[in-house]
């Protein structure tokens, strides 16, 4: 499978031997990443003829930024795997009833009398009053 991307002044074809078929959201996000890379390269190559020192500084800073991004990506993946493990269902013997003798959230709710008290508890216990929902910050937001 190939990913093709283009924009003003450049085209890109990304082909990897082991690239599997991508779902639409995956393809969209990865196209966005390649698009960004294409834009970065073209922004450098189309710099006007200026002092070579300036061009070198720009190139160095682009390289530094992308190296830092690479580190961030590794941290992000590690964090995602860790969070997945953190939120996975607890095994028997490690469930709240086994350890505490009650459900933490339910027990806390049962002793609070007002919404104001619930709001105070929520400041400290993050899953208290927690609601499911999209944070609106998914990969689809990469492309603008």
């Amino acid at each position, binding site marked *: 499978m190939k990913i093709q991307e283009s924009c003003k002044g450049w085209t890109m074809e990304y082909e990897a031997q082991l690239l599997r078929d991508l779902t639409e959201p995956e393809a969209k996000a990865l196209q966005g990443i390649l698009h960004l890379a294409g834009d970065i390269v073209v922004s450098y190559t189309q710099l006007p003829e200026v002092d070579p020192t300036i061009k070198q500084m720009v190139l160095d800073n682009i390289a530094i930024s992308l190296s830092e991004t690479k580190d961030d990506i590794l941290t992000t993946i*590690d964090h995602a795997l860790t969070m997945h493990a953190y939120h996975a269902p*607890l095994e028997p013997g490690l469930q709240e009833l086994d350890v505490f003798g009650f459900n933490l959230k339910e027990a806390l709710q049962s002793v609070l009398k007002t919404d104001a*008290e619930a709001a105070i508890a929520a400041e400290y*216990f993050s899953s208290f009053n927690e609601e499911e929902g999209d944070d609106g910050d998914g990969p689809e937001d990469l492309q603008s």
Partner: protein
Amino acid sequence: MATGLKTYKVNLPNEIEATATLPDNLDSELVEMALQVVLGGLVALSKATAAPVRRDFLIRYLASVISNADTALHSVAMSNSVENSNQKKIIDELLENLDHDK
């Protein structure tokens, strides 16, 4: 794995005390300090003169303890899970993909 139980007795000033029986594979010195600190926190809250303030602070204290207890539970589950999973292998392979020489 816990191999048995151990009973701890902690004493605070003014005849405040608690006895707790816990798994015996935890560091005794740390367990005693934890019990003492949790109790001390309750004693401190009891010294608030206004009843609404006492309750407000006690709710904050309880929610904070619950939050830490919840973190402890999930952290242990996560640690046990990671030990038995291939997370390290996945990260190593990603590192190889991102950090290889051209």
